[in-house]
């Protein structure tokens, strides 16, 4: 029969006639006690040995007890000092000093001195008993024995426990005895199995795994780094935002990154001489320059809204409006162009209220790259269409949305956007630092925007940069580390995951 090495050793050390303590077997076989115990249980499971358990009491020295083993019991030291001083009596102070006693040890010495017949104290003098023999002190002997290897079977242990020099501990002692099967196995011959490093397919299929001994590994050690694939942190943030939107009943929009200014600005009732449209940070294209075709009826409605406004006492802008300018192509500066295409029915046909839509897509800005400004950023855009919507609905929706990211205590600062009224900048409480932070821009779309697009219901919308939300959520300070070809792989490999 083949058994693991430790089991072979335990089996051989066990006796059929006598229950032997495992500790004794471990000492004899040079196995660690826990290894011997494990082997004994494995053997018991195989029916080769019987393991019995016996509660025992173990005595052990306390720290004080151990000190007295070295220095002697205080009463003995007092007795010896007294005898050296004068057998007929000496002043107690001098004797205590000579014995090297102080503090509690003085009281202990005096209390036990008389009890054990080492002498008497009279009128401030110590009189040692001449017949007292410290060598016969059973308490000292028991302490010395406990300090040695052998546990003494007899002694004044109750007294020593009382004096706090010894403690008692309950322990289970395991005893091993060979069974008849064990005897049979030994007689049939038992040898130690091989130690193996790796579990191989051959070991498994041949059944040899039963007989091998696996070499122990250092399981506590750090392992080599592993190459991991993981989603980009900003993408994880985008996924989280999308999940929040979908959970709140929003559908996702998609649409072109290169689009006509008509969809990016004119449909949003942005006057053509608005600084955002003439400023050079607009990403106008040189090639191609213009869109082939805009919906002619919509172009006329938008032109009229810009010139004359909408409604009986509406007014338009005192700005020129030129279709060729509207047809110019640019990389969208915001993803509200997608909203315009959806509201106009251009993307998916006419939409009837109620509707909720979102997108998390790139917007572009022709600007200098610095720590907080990128040429490209992800804009989070969301809008709701219903027969009737109020600013309270807007506030309620945003309160819920931002709460999902730990941003609370929303405040709404009235602001100006050409295409929304009322308009609000959103402020909230930073989840970590608690400071007031700007978290987005929002509003109800103006009638001058909705009427030309053919929308008869109310629409509210809001937007913010994904990178901004990411910075708030992770504390990142330089978004160039996050987005683009300057990314540091170390960052991607070690950044904490988002969920």
């Amino acid at each position, binding site marked *: 029969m083949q058994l693991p090495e430790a089991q072979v050793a335990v089996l051989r050390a066990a006796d059929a006639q006598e229950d032997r303590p495992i500790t004794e077997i471990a000492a004899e076989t040079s196995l660690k006690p826990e290894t011997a115990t494990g082997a004994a249980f494995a053997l018991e499971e195989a029916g080769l040995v019987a393991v019995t358990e016996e509660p025992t009491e173990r005595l052990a020295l306390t720290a004080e007890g151990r000190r007295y083993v070295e220095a002697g019991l205080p009463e003995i030291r007092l007795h010896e000092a007294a005898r050296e001083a004068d057998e007929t009596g000496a002043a107690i102070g001098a004797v205590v000093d000579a014995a090297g006693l102080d503090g509690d040890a003085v009281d202990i010495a005096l209390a036990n001195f008389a009890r054990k017949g080492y002498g008497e104290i009279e009128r401030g003098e110590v009189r040692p008993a001449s017949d007292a023999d410290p060598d016969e002190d059973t308490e000292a002997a028991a302490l010395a024995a406990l300090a040695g290897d052998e546990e003494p079977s007899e002694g004044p242990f109750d007294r020593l426990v009382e004096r706090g020099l010894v403690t008692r501990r309950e322990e289970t002692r395991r005893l091993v005895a060979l069974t008849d099967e064990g005897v049979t196995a030994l007689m049939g011959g038992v040898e130690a199995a091989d130690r193996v490093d790796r579990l191989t397919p051959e070991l498994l299929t041949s059944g040899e795994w039963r007989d091998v001994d696996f070499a122990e590994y250092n399981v506590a050690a750090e392992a080599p780094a592993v190459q991991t694939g993981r989603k980009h942190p900003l993408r994880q943030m985008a996924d989280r935002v999308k999940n929040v939107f979908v959970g709140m009943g929003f559908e996702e929009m998609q649409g072109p990154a290169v689009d006509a200014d008509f969809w990016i600005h004119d449909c949003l009732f942005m006057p053509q001489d608005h600084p955002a449209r003439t400023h050079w940070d607009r990403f106008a294209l040189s090639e191609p320059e213009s869109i082939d075709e805009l919906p002619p009826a919509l172009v006329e409605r938008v032109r009229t809204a810009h010139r004359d406004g909408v409604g009986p006492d509406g007014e338009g802008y005192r700005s020129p409006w030129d279709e060729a300018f509207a047809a110019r192509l640019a990389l969208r500066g915001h993803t509200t162009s997608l909203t315009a295409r959806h509201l106009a029915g251009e993307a998916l046909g006419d939409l009837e209220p109620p509707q909720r839509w979102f997108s998390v897509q790139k917007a572009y800005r022709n600007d200098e790259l610095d720590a907080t400004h990128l040429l490209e950023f992800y804009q989070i855009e969301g809008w709701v269409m219903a027969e009737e919507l109020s600013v309270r609905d807007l506030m309620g929706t945003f309160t819920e949305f931002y709460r999902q990211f730990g941003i609370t205590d929303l405040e709404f600062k009235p602001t100006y956007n050409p295409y929304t009224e009322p308009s609000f900048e959103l402020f909230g409480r930073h989840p970590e630092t608690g400071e007031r932070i700007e978290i987005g821009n929002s509003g109800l779309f103006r009638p001058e925007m909705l009427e030309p697009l053919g929308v008869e219901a109310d629409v509210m919308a809001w937007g913010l940069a994904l990178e901004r939300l990411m910075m708030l959520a992770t504390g990142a300070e330089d978004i160039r580390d996050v987005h683009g*070809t300057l990314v540091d792989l170390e960052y991607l490999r070690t950044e904490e995951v988002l969920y």
Partner: protein
Amino acid sequence: MPVIDVDPDELRELTGQRLDDEDLLADLFELGVEYEGTAEDGAFKLEFEPDRLDWLSVEGLARALRYNYGEARGVYVPDTNDAEWTIEVVDTPPERPYVTGAVVRGLDLSTTALASLIQLQEKLHATMGRARGKGAIGVHDLTMLKGAPVTGRDDGRGKSLTYTSMDPDDERFVPLESNAEFTPREVVERHHIGTEYADLVTDLPRYPAIYDDIGLFSFPPVVNGRRTEVTPDSRDLLVEMTGTNQWTIDRMLNVVCYALSARGGQIERVAVQYDATAPGEHAGDTLDRPNLETKQKTVAHDRVESVLGRTFDQETVVDCLERSGLSVADTDDNPDSYEVSIPPYRVDVLHPIDVIDDIGRAYGFNDLGPRYPDVSTVGGRHERSRLEDVTRETLVGLGFEDLLNFHLTSEPETFERMRLSPEDDAVGGGRPVSIGEPYSAAYTIVRTWALPSLVQVLENNTHRSYPQHLAEVGMVAARDETENTGVAEHRTVAGVLADPEASYEDARARLQALVRAFGAGLETPPTAHPSFIDGRSGSVVVDGESAGIVGELHPAVLVEHDLELPVAAFEFRLDAVQ
């Protein structure tokens, strides 16, 4: 957004309220004015939105607060005196045909009023004036002007100025902040203010000019003459504005007149007399300026309630309107709506919705309270978004690090450094979509393929441990005449394996795992591509359709990017697996 400096003590004094800073800023926040910090001299830096230009001065802001506290109610229109001065308009540049003006008398500019006026002027230029293009303001010391006889008036009364045009080389004057005489052309070429606004006039054959009886005193929209410069001792001012739109400059003038009136100035009208031959839509007209007429909007009560989301009694609405500086006609006849008068300094009110916004600000939007809308809809991801997502998940499962690169890049990165040319009929070839006026040479086109971005990331990370297995699912674009926008945008899937042991087979293995995950068939017949080693690149053919490239990158491409180990790579169009 404009930021102006406002002395809080001056604001308190003009407002007549003893509020501490915190309460004052909280009230301003509710009106839509954001506190940006405190200047060294203790002034508040306040950020404004460009709709309320009438708030761009301490006087205007104080007026808004006085209204908000109910210290003032309803529309206020200052009294004006009859015109003594006329601006005659003749032979103006057709590119800048309009002018307006007013006289303000009895001012004390010795305190902070002059600084406030200059700040207001600058902010109006930056916003409504469109950097002086649409409207430019000139303010002059009236006592330094000598009026000429008014044309067509034989009683000898009245004084006139002339807005006209001049030859850039045939006139001389001393501009502000200078001691020397310049010709107008020299001003735009050499004078430090002139060069800043040169673009507004250099294309014009004749420059705008305003003369009095002495000569040229203003060169709008560039610079005034030094003769009429306003000083702290000036008491009577001429305010003139020129521009491309009469309505715009008239409104800018109203904002300035209200601010000066709040400083105790008495407004005196000016006649603007357009010659019958003057360009623009006012030829032959005489305009009485400033035009301080109010305008009317009809606001429905139930629209107020539906926008603000609660019921109101009429008294509350009227109170809010009056505390916004608006007036309401008697509501007895028509309980369902309000006839609201809008003061002449408001430039932002185009529609009744703007009046409702005023009611909300006066009531306090944050006092309305949030409410989750009782509207039920079903949410969902777009199909393409789900497709991109599952592709990314599969790549990550194959051990790729997901990247997110810019769509914008340059021609050298896209082509030359990859040994490719836009003329090549190969993945990544084709005419790129180009930016008109790029800010940086590094970002001039939209990328035609994504592999160059991945190779750049490898280039920037040679100090990081290998293997580096990187992938991206993202947008690429190219010219396409068949598209309405002339641009075809695609989602692309690109991957690189930078690894001392990397070979064609490693890229092929991952590519086939990815393609087959979609149940699609993959073939990779040999093909040549300048970025790859000949004989070690194949065309990615998905279900019979050619969609991309797979292979080992050419050593010249690797060396160009400082890479010292082989890179196997692939890129294909995501829609091929759909």
